[in-house]
């Protein structure tokens, strides 16, 4: 058992809100992701059992969306928007700046386990570009200074 009892309870409660339980697969994947920071076959299996849906339905759905990765990530998952509005304001340099600063490759975990940097498509923050999402939070109108400050904050919070 990987998912906690409270996660399972939350999943089964969510399911009651939908006319068909299968609809609760995405919410369930969110619950699992929030608890563990990644997903696994075992979690798919447990979700399928709690909801009474098919394992394959969970596995297929999870593989389609970007928010349910199977790979483990750093404690802070930094997603830099690479799309047009952000790119026009230098987001590509933001990515390289972060990778250099954290001394890590795209998608890898820093040695201290704290950070993973990935690129993302438009996150709906285009008027405040460039931006990045760190875990659930958006950080907008980014500058070198701001990024430095944020990384320091994350490091100090550990």
């Amino acid at each position, binding site marked *: 058992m990987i998912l906690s009892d409270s996660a399972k309870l939350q999943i089964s409660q969510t399911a009651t809100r939908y006319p068909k339980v299968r609809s609760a697969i995405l919410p369930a994947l969110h619950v699992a992701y929030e608890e563990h920071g990644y997903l696994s*076959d075992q979690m798919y299996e447990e979700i399928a059992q709690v909801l009474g849906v098919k*394992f*394959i339905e969970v*596995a297929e759905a999870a*593989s*389609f969306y970007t928010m349910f990765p199977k790979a483990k990530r750093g404690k802070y998952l930094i997603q830099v928007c690479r799309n047009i509005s952000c790119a026009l304001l230098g987001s590509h340099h933001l990515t390289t700046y972060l990778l250099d600063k954290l001394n890590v490759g795209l998608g890898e975990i820093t040695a201290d386990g704290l950070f993973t940097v990935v690129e993302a498509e438009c996150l709906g923050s285009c008027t405040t570009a460039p931006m990045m999402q760190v875990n659930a939070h958006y950080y907008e109108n980014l500058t070198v200074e701001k990024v430095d400050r944020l990384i320091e904050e994350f490091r100090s919070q550990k």
Partner: protein
Amino acid sequence: MSDFNITVNGQQVPVTKGQTVLQASLAAGIDIPVFCWHAQLVPVGACRICLVEIEKLPKLQVACATIASEGMIVHTDSPKTIKARQGVLEFILAHHPLDCPTCDKGGECDLQNLTFKYGLDYSRQHEPKHRVIVDANSTFDDLLIGPEIIRNQNRCIHCYRCTRIVDEIAFEDDLGAYQRGYHTEILPPPGREIRNLYSGNVVEYCPVGALTNDDWRYKVRVWLTKQTNVICPHCPDGCNLKLWTFHNKLFRATSNANENIDNGFLCDIGRYGYRYVASADRIKRPMVRRAGELVETGWEEALTFIKKQTDDIKSKLSGSGFFGFIGDIRTNEEIYAFQRLLRRVIGSNNIDHRFHRRRRLTPGEEVISRGIESDNAEYKDIENADVIIVLGSDLHSENPITSLRVKRAVKRHNAKVILLNPLPTPLGKRTATVEVIYKQGTAAVLLHSLIDAMVDLNQFDASAVKLSAADIADFRKANAAYSGVKGSEITGVDVSLVARVAEMLAAAQNVFILAGSYIERDPLRDSLHLAVANLQSFCKSARKIFLPPDSNSVGAAFLGAEPTVLPGRQSWAKKAVCEDLWHGPISDAPGKDTIGILEAIDEDEIECGFVFNADPVRLFPDGEYVRSVMEKLKLLVVIDSFMTDTARFADVILPLSTFAEIEGTRVNWEKRMQYSQRAIPPLHESKPGCQIIELLADRLGVRFNQPNPADVYQEMAKFLPTGAPTIYAGIGKDGFLIRSVAANKPGKLADLRFVAPAIDTEYRFFLLVGNADHHRGALTERNETLMKFTSEPFVGISEADATDLAVSDGDLVKVESKYGRVVGKAMILRDFPSRRVLLPENFGEMSTNVLMGRQDKIDLVRLAKM
């Protein structure tokens, strides 16, 4: 019967309302290319190769999913259409590995063919090809994704036929499409394999070589092969196969789609079943017992031996000292010729084909043989039913294609499916609306509880079922002991569940009842036949099918393989017809059935037997008894393809050709007679059954001059109902339905006399016999491919019993009855009821019949960990 016309390329094309542009065009002979569309699948419009121009619509439309409407003007060859089609082909080919020279699909690949026909003659794609790398050291990216199936993702054109077949047709879930965009990959769920009973269809319907079979891998180029059309010998569903041969060797089987029956799908047993034909274990030459040992010999010697021995016995005992068993998997011609041999040449009516199920005859019941007393009904009637009852049958394992039809009824027509079974079966997973598990041996009571519950409902309309109030009242009174709570105590089925099923039945307009092998094995099977008929009387409209045990059980029953009925199920009064046709007298001595024969041998009244592709030693309940009896025979002639348990007792063995080496007809559960071609000449020194029978008849004194099935058929056809084709050439794709006039008329209501099965405190478990995954009967054990799916027997028990006995999965357990014992590995079955043991009947190493008593109506065993 068209409703209106549309115009396609200037041609008037008739349309039946609801048809797509594609369907109408194809029917009119206008070719529109397709990849993702398949007649049996819901259109998804994914591949876009079928785009056509429809006047007044701004965009091209997919012909496969566009419903034709009156006045449509369609162009399939306008410049716009051609450009789009070439564009789609170019897109598909852009990242295709173009490895046709090493692809098994070469020669029958839709992508090759459509590129050949419509493709561009240049390529603009200069980017590196996407490749899903499985093996970096090889140019092939083959991935084994199940026991038989190999995937090469790089060839996949993302038509999703495979996943749709698995989901929509088979109702299974072991193949999916993962990721998105061009990364989309076809795979089983993580950590699993594709191994459902219908898995081979994904290979057949993959339009390219993305999914291929291990079986056929790199063996032969498809264009070098020859195809023959045969009828599958593995179960009474009667699917149509194509056998693919090269230099007289079998290489694969595919569907020879027949919409009456299989809709183009096969189960894996049928698809890979042919592999037993070339098994190294085949009996290659005739054998004769010399000094206690069976030694190979020639045909002439074997026949001379038989002649001499039979003469001796005949002089002593006359014809009644002989018997014959014939297997239900043989063709009608063989069965007919075999019973003629016994009755006319040997002078014995001791003949039976029901040697593999215990059968105690009750007066008046002797003519009943499963399958033949079914109503007149076809596959398509299953689809027309709104409620389908599967009674006492693991329909999935025993009648896989019937099972698909039930699923289709659910998918396409929202039919409700009620399972009434002594154990949970795979159909319970997704097909069934309700699954009812009754205590072994109480099915008849359950049916009466249902009837009783139905009558109480508002929806029940006595006028619609044509029963008088008095009849109903009498009936209920007579069967009061089996209704409501009392019934529930006997069956173990909750009253509320009974009520729920009753409601569905009372509301149903059209009920279809499929009764299977657990009915045959039920201690109350005699009453059950009546109980089913009673239920039928209480439904507005219902048909009942008693699924026959083997591929040609119905043919065997119809063509004289039972002691007291002559071919065509003629009564003895019609004996003269036979004597006339057979140029001589037949005996009046009443024939004995299986049990009668065995007892007569035991009492030295019978000394010689001809066993034709039958294995009573392996299958007749009470294996020990059969063994002891076989030993007593003076002469046992076994005609078979393999060294069966029975053949080990033989004095002479004549090598018999298998289904692929003979032609002939078979009758499926619909009572549809179909013709099966010969694919290859007899292997080794084996001979086709009709030829062997002719040789024997000739040697024993009567020459029929019918060594070929076609000759036998012409005589046999005289016993078929009027209208039957008189020669093979007259049997078309639809075959011929052997209808009986009496069927579909429910009989008189009968009450039930229920005797509760005796409970034994020592032998506390009910024995249930079924089929292991990918096996059916005894033939599949000789099949390398099917053995890949399940290779050994198991002892299936419930979780509760496992805990009780401290048994875990894979532990050796012994199963014992009063008669014998077997040992096997435990398999703990989820949701399986306790106090039951499930054994597969497919493996020689674990003969289930040693546990059974021939006098018993129910089989009880005990279990212990080794």
